[in-house]
Every structure is written in structure tokens, then in C-alpha cells.
């Protein structure tokens, strides 16, 4: 017997299929016959998809909150003991719910794309909408097929197991998945516009880049936030004191970020010089393919990972989808490559354009290195039949040179002008930041870093930070002189005058903080482990830890055992930490929750490893990692930079309608002459 929630949800999903299919058919009909009414049907399908997905999502949330265990997904992740907040966010906690959430976000983006752009003349938007509908079709098929969250459970159970305990330990679990999906799914939009541009014959122009610039920036911002949130969550929850393990699924979220970053830069070269058009298509298609690859890896059972969802036949659906996407993407890019090849021209090798080319080289190289490493165990097993591991040591060794090169380039790029830099200008811009390099290298050595790469990273960050800062100071200084403004006003007006550039520089600063945090925390990390009785102490990093108490308490869904430790500076108590072990009724292994004391200069991180049942002693692992909070702070700065750089300005929102609205879509435009440099 299906409940109202199940009926509404399942019904909405079933209904979505014909609407989406109708929309996909309607667009080519509209274009080929020049029929505006068919186009309206196509756009109508996009709106209908959003409405139906929203209905399904709301039905699921309602089912979760009311503990409607007749719905299969609720029976899987719901529990009467789980607090309301975690019940709501369990919407994306397991496979079926995460697919529903993805489909909803995709439908939301589709609706927004159409709503904002439908008055635009030409076939770009219709084909883009059609592409988004095709992607939605796949997820809709999943939702009524192998990933059906609204299955009927009979007889209806009284209670459920609750969400995975790891997902209930920390508030960041509420934040990381939605951010990730907003970013991942967001990359479908530039992809759809790229496909639309090729299909509508508009790929020679830059409109598809301009229209999607905000989308790309926003998705990139969300993805950056998601990766940092994921790192932070992993650090605070998983108990090994690290924030990045080169886990295949961590890599899968990082790969599209790398190509998206490359695209953000090379898109500027296309807009200014009309070059790299094929390359940009490659990047956008590649970014989208990587997002699908990421979701394929987690849901196919092909790799084992902290992130892997339970699997079944859904893996084969994803395999089919990724095959189609790869073929479609490859055909589209390769097929249109010679039509788009531009007669490129650069004024000089000493220019920002060249730096962006190098930036793309190293970002793509970085991406391919991580991709090779992630897929290599699969390939090796398929070909040699032997299991091999590719882990931290491999990635660190192979990617560090590229990271160092990128950090250095981040100082050169902003300093060089477009087109051409004279030798005098080169000297004026590129030599002074070296002082910053020397300064930070000295800081690294004084702090105790002996690892050559560690010092190098500091030096390059010093160089690049100085160069980026000078861009602000020189620019603001010029404004002060010209308009007699105060420093703050000059600064703000400078940024407002060219948001994209200065937002980018702010994001660069975010990366610098992250780089310093990672470099310092990995080279200067210290660790101690000790078994303490009450009153006993242990030392780490100049601080003393004293075990106060070992305690336990009952909570609705779990039992918690913790140790209370005081942090002493000399004889003064400056704080307490309470690392804990959580025993969930449904798990055989306990889930540890470390406790972290963060300071500007570093983190003191405690983990409760073991304890005697009579509460007489506890084994504590203490880790001191300098500058870890700079990673999270840097992430915030990156996102701030993305917001500053990507926020649509009033200037851009005013889209000049050259032809009165509505108009029938025109046939593909005639071949226009080669883009003039």
C-alpha cells in the first residue's frame, strides 16, 4: 500500500519522462521548421521537468520527516531516533536520494537557463536546453528504474537504521554534498551551451562563452567550496589527522575543478584574441565528462572508497551513459575542429596570453596525472590481472613540480599585460616580487622547513603574492593620483572597475593561503601517542596535555565514550579537548570523533584511540599541525574571489535585443568570414 508521499513522488518522476522526451523532440522540430510554438513546447518541458522534480523532492522530504517507512528510501536511511536536521539532510545521504537531488538541481539549472535566456535570438539556447533535457532524461530513467527512491515497502517497518553514522557526526556533512552537486551539475550548463553552439553553428563566436561565464564562475565557486568543505569535514571527522588522501573519489571531484580553472583562464584568451576555440570546447566537454566520470566511479562499484555508494545494476546504466557522453563529446569536438581552427596570432611571447597557455599546460598536466593515477589500478588489473595501488606518495611526487610551476605563474600572469610587454616593463614588473620570494623562503627556513619543495613553495607563494598585491597597490595608487581618492575608496573602485580581473586576484590569494597551509602542515607535522591514566600528562609541540576524565553518555541514536583533556601552558589551563568514540547501534565498529583546537598558527588535534572498560586509562593520539586553519581560510577567500569576479554586473544583465521578441528561430547563420584578430 503506497502512501501519499510515495504516490506523489513516484508519480511525478514517472510523469517527468514523457515531458522530457517531448522537449527533446520539440527543439529540433522547432529549429528545422522555424516554428516558435514548438520551441515553446520545448521550453515548457524544461519548466515541467523542474516542477515535477520539485514535487518529487518535496514528497521525499515529507516522507523522511514524517518517518514514512513505506517508502523504500526512508526505510533505508530513516530512523525515529535521528534528529530532525540529520533526517532532512539524509535526502542526499544514500544513492537513490543523491540521484534525486542531482536531478532536481539539474532541472533547476535548466529552468534558470531558459528563463534568463529565452529572449535571445538564434538557436544557441534551444539546443542548449535540449542538451540539458537529454542529461535530465538519463537521471529520470535512473529514478524510475534502478535508483527508484519511492519503492513500496510492505509490510511497513516500525523503524529504520538511520543514516550512515559518519554522516551524522558533523555539521559540514550538511554543506559538502549540496555544494558539490551545485558545482558538478553546474558544469552541465557550459557543456550544454558548447554543444548548442556547435549544433547551431555559432561556435565560431564567443557568445556561448559570454552567456555561460557566470554559470562557469558560479559552478567553479561551488566546486571549490565543496572540495574545501570536504577536506575540512574529512579532517575533523575521520580521525587520521589528514585532509586529503588522494582517494579516487576525492580525485574525481578535483579533476573537473582543474579543467574548469584552465577554462576560466583560456576563455579570456578566446574572448580577446579569438584563439583556442577548439581547445576551449575540449575543456568544457572534458569538464563535463569528468563530472560524469566522478559520479560513475562512486556508483559503479568499480573502486573501493570512503565515498562509494552501494551498488547494483546502476553501474551499468552509468557505464552506458558515460559511453554515450564520451562518444558524443568526442564526435562534437573532433568533428567541428577544422571549422573552428583560427589563424592565430600573438603579438609577443612575452605576454599574458603565453602565461595563460602555460597555465593551461600545467593545469591539464596536473589533471591528467591525477587521472592516470586514479584509473591506473583499473587498467593494470584489466591488462595484467594484478592489483596495484596508487596512493599519496605517487601523487605527491608527480604533481609537486606542476604545483610549483603554477604557483610561480600566478605571479607572472597578473604582472604581464595582454599582447606585448617591453623589456623595460618586464623588468619593472617581474623583478621586484623576487623580494617577496626571498622573504618567504627565509620564513620557511626559520620555521624549520628543510624539505626543498617546502621552501620552494614558500618562495613561489612569496613571489606571486607580492606580484598580485602590487597589481592592487599600483592600480589603487594610480586611481588616487588621478581622482584624489582615499586608499579604501580607490581600492573599492579599482575592483569595481574590473571585477573579473580583481576577483581573480583575490582568488589567487586564497590559493596562496591554501598552499602555505598545506606545505607547512605536511612538512612540520608532529605526532605523539600515549596511554594515560587520570592525572597523567603528555607533551606535544611545547604544550602539555593532562587527562582529566574518561566518561560515557547515552544519546538517542548512539552511545558516546569520551576523554576530557586539559591543555596546559606551564601550569595554566588554556583549554580543554574532548575526543570521543561513538557507538552506533547499527554499526559494529565505533566511529571516532577527534577534537581539534584551532589557532591562527596551527591545530592541536586529539584522537581517542582506545580505553579500558573500567575507565581507568585511555590511549590518546595527539597531532600538532601548523597552519592548517589557513587552508580553510584560503578556501573562503577563493570563494569570495569567485563571487567578486563572477557576480553579474548591471552592464551585462542588459542584453540588447536586436530583434523584437518573440521571433521564430532563424536557420543556421551563413558562414561568416574568419574571426579578425
Amino acid at each position, binding site marked *: 500500500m503506497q502512501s501519499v508521499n510515495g504516490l506523489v513522488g513516484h508519480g511525478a518522476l514517472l510523469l517527468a519522462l514523457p515531458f522530457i522526451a517531448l522537449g527533446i523532440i520539440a527543439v529540433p522540430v522547432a529549429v528545422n521548421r522555424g516554428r516558435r510554438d514548438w520551441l515553446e513546447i520545448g521550453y515548457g518541458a524544461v519548466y515541467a521537468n523542474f516542477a515535477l522534480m520539485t514535487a518529487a523532492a518535496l514528497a521525499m522530504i515529507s516522507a523522511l520527516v514524517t518517518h514514512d517507512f513505506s517508502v523504500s528510501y526512508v526505510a533505508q536511511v530513516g530512523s525515529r531516533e535521528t534528529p530532525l536536521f540529520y533526517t532532512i539532510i539524509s535526502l542526499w545521504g544514500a544513492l537513490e536520494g543523491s540521484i534525486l537531488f542531482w536531478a532536481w538541481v539539474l532541472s533547476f539549472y535548466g529552468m534558470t537557463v531558459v528563463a534568463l535566456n529565452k529572449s535571445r535570438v538564434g538557436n544557441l539556447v534551444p539546443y542548449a536546453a535540449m542538451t540539458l533535457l537529454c542529461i535530465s532524461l538519463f537521471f529520470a530513467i535512473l529514478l524510475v528504474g534502478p535508483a527508484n527512491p519511492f519503492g513500496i515497502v510492505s509490510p511497513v517497518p516500525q523503524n529504520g537504521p538511520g543514516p550512515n553514522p559518519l554522516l551524522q557526526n558533523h555539521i559540514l556533512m550538511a554543506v559538502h554534498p549540496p555544494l558539490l552537486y551545485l558545482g558538478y551539475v553546474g558544469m552541465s550548463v557550459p557543456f550544454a551551451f558548447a554543444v548548442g553552439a556547435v549544433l547551431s553553428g555559432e561556435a565560431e563566436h564567443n557568445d556561448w562563452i559570454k552567456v555561460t561565464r557566470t554559470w562557469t564562475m558560479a559552478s567553479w565557486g561551488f566546486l571549490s567550496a565543496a572540495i574545501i568543505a570536504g577536506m575540512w569535514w574529512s579532517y575533523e571527522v575521520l580521525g587520521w589527522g589528514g585532509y586529503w588522501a588522494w582517494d579516487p573519489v576525492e580525485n574525481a571531484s578535483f579533476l573537473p575543478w582543474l579543467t574548469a580553472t584552465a577554462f576560466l583562464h583560456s576563455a579570456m584568451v578566446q574572448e580577446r584574441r579569438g584563439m583556442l576555440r577548439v581547445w576551449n570546447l575540449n575543456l568544457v566537454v572534458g569538464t563535463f565528462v569528468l563530472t560524469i566520470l566522478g559520479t*560513475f566511479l562512486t556508483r*559503479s*562499484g*568499480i*573502486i*573501493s572508497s570512503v565515498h562509494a555508494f552501494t551498488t547494483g545494476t546502476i*553501474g*551499468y546504466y552509468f*557505464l552506458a551513459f*558515460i*559511453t554515450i557522453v*564520451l*562518444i558524443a563529446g*568526442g*564526435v*562534437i*569536438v*573532433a*568533428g*567541428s*575542429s*577544422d*571549422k573552428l581552427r583560427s589563424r592565430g596570432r600573438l603579438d609577443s611571447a612575452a605576454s599574458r596570453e603565453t602565461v595563460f597557455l602555460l597555465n593551461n599546460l600545467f593545469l591539464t598536466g596536473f589533471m591528467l596525472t591525477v587521472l592516470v593515477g586514479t*584509473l591506473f589500478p*583499473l*587498467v593494470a*588489473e*584489466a591488462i595484467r590481472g*594484478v*592489483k596495484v595501488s596508487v596512493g599519496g606518495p605517487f601523487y605527491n611526487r608527480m604533481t609537486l613540480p606542476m604545483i610549483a610551476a603554477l604557483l610561480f605563474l600566478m605571479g607572472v600572469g597578473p604582472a604581464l599585460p595582454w599582447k606585448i610587454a617591453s623589456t623595460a616593463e618586464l623588468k619593472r614588473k617581474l623583478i621586484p616580487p623576487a623580494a617577496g620570494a626571498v622573504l618567504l623562503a627565509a620564513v620557511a627556513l626559520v620555521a624549520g622547513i628543510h624539505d626543498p619543495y617546502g621552501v620552494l613553495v614558500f618562495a613561489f607563494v612569496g613571489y606571486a603574492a607580492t606580484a598580485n598585491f602590487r597589481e592592487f597597490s599600483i592600480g589603487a595608487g594610480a586611481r588616487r593620483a588621478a581622482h584624489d581618492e582615499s586608499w579604501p575608496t580607490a581600492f573599492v573602485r579599482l575592483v569595481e572597475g574590473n571585477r573579473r580581473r580583481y576577483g581573480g586576484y583575490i582568488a589567487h590569494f586564497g590559493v596562496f593561503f591554501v598552499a602555505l597551509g598545506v606545505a607547512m602542515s605536511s612538512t612540520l607535522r608532529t605526532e605523539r601517542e600515549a596511554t594515560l591514566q587520570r592525572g597523567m600528562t603528555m607533551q606535544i609541540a611545547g604544550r602539555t596535555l593532562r587527562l582529566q576524565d574518561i566518561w560515557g553518555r547515552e544519546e538517542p541514536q548512539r552511545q558516546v565514550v569520551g576523554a576530557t583533556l586539559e591543555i596546559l601552558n606551564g601550569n595554566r589551563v588554556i583549554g580543554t579537548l574532548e575526543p570521543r568514540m561513538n557507538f552506533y547501534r547499527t554499526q*559494529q565498529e565505533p566511529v571516532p570523533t577527534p577534537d581539534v583546537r584551532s589557532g591562527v598558527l596551527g591545530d592541536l588535534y586529539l584522537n581517542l584511540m582506545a580505553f579500558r572498560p573500567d575507565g581507568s586509562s585511555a590511549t590518546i593520539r595527539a597531532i600538532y599541525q601548523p597552519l592548517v586553519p589557513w587552508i580553510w581560510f584560503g578556501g573562503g577567500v577563493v570563494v569570495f574571489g569567485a563571487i567578486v569576479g563572477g557576480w553579474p554586473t548591471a552592464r551585462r544583465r542588459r542584453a540588447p535585443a536586436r530583434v523584437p521578441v518573440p521571433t521564430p528561430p532563424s536557420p543556421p547563420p551563413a558562414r561568416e568570414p574568419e574571426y579578425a584578430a
Partner: protein
Amino acid sequence: MNWRRAGIAAVLVIPVVFVFSRGMKTDPREIPSPLPGNPAPGFALAVFAPGQPPLERPIGDTVRLADLKGRVVVLNFWASWCLACRDEHQGLSAVARDYTGKPVQFVGSLYQDTPGNGTAWIAEMGGQSYPSVNDPKALTAIDYGLYGVPETFFIAQDGKIARKITGPAPPAVVKHIIDSLLTTASP
């Protein structure tokens, strides 16, 4: 539309899909062991759970693999905190009893646990027909490439590891392996 290039791009997708589909047929969590076919690593461990007559050994006795040459040895790693070990426990005890008088030796080895817990668990499970030894620093477990419990090793009369079972060992399979090892015994 350059169809030739498009075609090449489409064809290049095939090896990628091939690798993925192969990957989907294997279990990523299973680690194939290099040990079968090689001489079994020796051990000398103390009995903490004596087992039951007629297979029992006194507590404190040392079980040495070298002493067991010429017999088929079934070495089963288990732990009291291991849920899957419960599934195989009674089956293994029963099979061990079936081979009384034959040149077959069952040995349990406790993994990441204490003898106290192990003994209590055995009592809770209704007894274990064969003796179990304690492996305090997991040296023997690591020697046998253990990555979880339960794992069962079948050591032939010549001292080489013949088979390894990961996960609960079904009694029928255990019997089958022992029988095949007994019939291929060298004179």
C-alpha cells in the same frame, strides 16, 4: 562536420569502456593473495582455548607448524568482535570433529583480540572442537597476509599453502578441499 575525425574520436572511446567494464566485474575490496602455492610461513603460538576431546590440546601448549608437517592443516583466523566469524564457527567445529583420526589438524588463531574475550566468545558459541592459539602482536596474521577476519588457510602435507578462503568458510567447501588434499597425499 569532419566525420573522419569524429569517427576516430568515437573509436578511441572503445578501449576506455572496455577497461571500465572489466573493472565492474571484479571486487575492488578483494586482495588476491600471493601465498597459495608457496610454503606456509611457520609459526609457534601458545594455546589459549584447548578445544574439546579428542582434538584438544592443553592451555599453554605451543603449536608449531613445523610439527604438523605430514598433516593437512586448516588454519582459521577469527576474532570475538567479528560478526562473520559467527557464521562459520559451528560448521568448522563440526567438520573438524568429522576428521578425527585422520591426518588433519584444525587450528584457530585469534586476531587483534584478547584470550579472555576469545574464551568467553567460544563459551557463548557453545564450544570449539579444536584448539585456538593467541597471536598477540598479529605477527602471524601479517605473515599470512591477513586483511580481515575470517580467513582460512589450507596447508597441504608438504607444508605448502594450497588454498585460502576469505570470509566465512562453508562446511561443504572445507570438506571438499581437505578431501582433495588427502587424496593427493604423497606416499
